[in-house]
């Protein structure tokens, strides 16, 4: 089945609303949708929900002979799949352009950044090494697959444990999990992709575009970064001319987002570890809220309800020094972590004041008020250059 085409009226409306700094789901320019990370009962199995986008990653391993050029290094293999389940427009056995791009980006993000210690995967030099295989399946497509896939893959890799092996002479014994505790992979750092959609030849920028926004965007910039603010890869597609300032600004936004997502992943991992240790119940089934019909649930759409201009002025007049607002991930059920609760934005980066749930979160808005960041060509904001080490790594 072919993909639903985008009508002229949707395109016009989206562009107009982006110009007016509004998004379809009531988010702000720099807001991510809710991220939810859930681990399965097996090690190395992880689903990530990014709004309605849903991605499953599964890590597996096997013993293989190494490559001749690198006899002491383990192998990493990445495979991303788009099934018709995700979107009726996807065909299961066709190499679409999107599929190739996503696979390549995932590989660049996770293999080329050397976030996994491949040397520790060597069993017998030149003969047997572990091959780590990461399968990423897209379960539902609502835009920004790359970010969801990268979060899912790195979370699954950090969660994964390979069987313990013992070497006696030439004999390799692989122990089952019951005999000896499996060992986790050594993850040096967690590269996470952050996507920026550009509209009107780069005049407008949105973080975490949804599917419809992706259909009207002019260009896409994907930055993979770790929490040490090192850029692991950067890719601009769509052929738009970006200014140096814009790229720097994006990398600055990315660093904020990445630190938040990294914190969320480590919270989710910690939570899962704790539950497993305590012998509690874990896995996907446990993280489903009970006695609720889940099939038709959708996240409650944040609505703009109050008259905008009046409150904005009031807030500006009341605003005082902005403290550091770091959202703390919420643990909804065992084995999960989640940032944001749908209704109000809990991201640190807050800009426009034209959205308000209720007057009661006025105090919170005051705090955020001074962190305004506006993207446009004319800019007076100071440009901060990220650390040089990170820049040199950018491939």
């Amino acid at each position, binding site marked *: *089945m*072919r993909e*639903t*085409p*985008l*009508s*002229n*009226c*949707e*395109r*016009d*409306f989206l562009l*107009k*609303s982006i110009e*007016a700094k*509004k998004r*379809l*789901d*009531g988010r702000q320019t720099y807001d991510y949708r809710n991220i939810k990370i859930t681990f399965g009962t097996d090690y190395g199995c992880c689903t990530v929900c990014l709004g309605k986008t849903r991605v499953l990653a599964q890590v597996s391993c096997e013993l293989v002979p190494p490559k001749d050029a690198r006899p002491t290094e383990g192998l990493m293999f990445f495979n991303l799949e788009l099934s018709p389940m995700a979107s009726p427009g996807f065909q299961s056995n066709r190499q679409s352009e999107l599929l190739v791009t996503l696979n390549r980006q995932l590989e660049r993000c996770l293999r080329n950044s050397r976030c996994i210690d491949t040397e520790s995967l060597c069993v017998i030099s030149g003969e047997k090494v572990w091959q780590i295989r990461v399968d990423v399946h897209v379960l539902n497509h609502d835009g920004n697959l790359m970010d969801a896939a990268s979060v899912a893959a790195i979370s699954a890799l950090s969660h994964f444990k390979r069987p313990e092996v013992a070497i006696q002479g030439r004999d390799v014994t692989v122990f089952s999990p019951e005999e000896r505790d499996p060992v986790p992979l050594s993850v040096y750092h967690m590269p996470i992709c952050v996507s920026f959609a550009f509209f009107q030849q780069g005049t407008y920028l949105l973080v975490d575009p949804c599917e419809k926004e992706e259909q009207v965007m002019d260009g896409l910039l994907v930055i993979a970064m770790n929490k040490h603010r090192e850029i692991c890869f950067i890719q601009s597609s769509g052929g738009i001319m970006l200014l140096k300032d814009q790229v720097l600004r994006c990398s600055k936004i990315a660093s904020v987002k990445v630190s938040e997502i990294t914190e969320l992943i480590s919270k989710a991992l910690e939570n899962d570890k704790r539950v497993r240790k305590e012998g509690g119940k874990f896995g996907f089934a446990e993280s489903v809220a009970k006695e609720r*019909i889940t099939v*038709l*649930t*959708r996240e*409650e*759409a*944040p*609505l*703009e*309800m*109050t*008259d*905008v201009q009046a409150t904005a002025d009031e807030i500006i007049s009341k605003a005082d020094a902005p403290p550091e607002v770091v959202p703390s991930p919420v643990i909804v059920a065992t084995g999960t972590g989640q940032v944001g609760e749908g209704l109000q934005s809990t991201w640190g980066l807050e800009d426009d004041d034209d959205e308000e749930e209720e007057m009661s979160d006025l105090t919170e808005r005051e705090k955020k008020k001074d962190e305004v960041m506006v993207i446009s060509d004319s800019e007076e904001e100071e440009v901060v250059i990220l650390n040089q080490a990170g820049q040199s790594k950018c491939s």
Partner: protein
Amino acid sequence: MDIIHSCFKAQIGEVVLPGDVFRFNVSSVEDDSSVKAEKIICGPGLRRNGDEIQVYKSGILRHKQPNLYWIDSQQKRYVPVKGESVIGIVTAKTGDIFKVDVGSSEQASLSYLAFEGATKRNRPNVQVGDLVYAQFIIANKDMEPELVCIDSCGRANGMGVFGADGLLFKVSLGLVRRLLSPQSEIVKDLEKIFPFEMVVGLNGRVWIKAKTIQQTLIVANLLESCENMTAQQRQALFKRVADGAL
């Protein structure tokens, strides 16, 4: 007649699942000469198989006097049905027909002569990407569905190209049917908040246009959130919006 109806009666308004069966004894109905042979009509989700009626969709069993039964289900994928009015997106112009996407498995065709006042000389102005409100004239499983933008008298009757601006979005088919039902409270409640234009297609597409972009977005988000809310929740939400927005 009562024999047939009695097997449904207990379940009206209840949730039924695929595989549920309603049994009645044909011979006893026919033998009973005192009652006239009465027909019942199986709507969507029900199918007759010999002595029994099988359910093949999950949803709520509905009944309309005198003899109509159907299942009110909440699916998202549209299947064309003859006579239903839908919102389509024109995807291609090929010779004398337009290809229109209606959200079903196959694209529908729309002849350029099927517009009000269109002749071979006087072609309607339809561009690729335009929205059309049209009606199915042919819809069956073996043939390409065909749309028309005129009624049997050749009048537009509200159909045709529309949507210069405004927002198009998708909701479930169940919600669309609820919006269109004459006793629907949703639209009545919604239009109290502020005025807006709305086109609802039975294929789950809804087009909204209000005075400003923000108002359009509010209406669209409200409609989407109506999907799974009780009447009380909905009224409470609408009241909050009305208080805040006005």
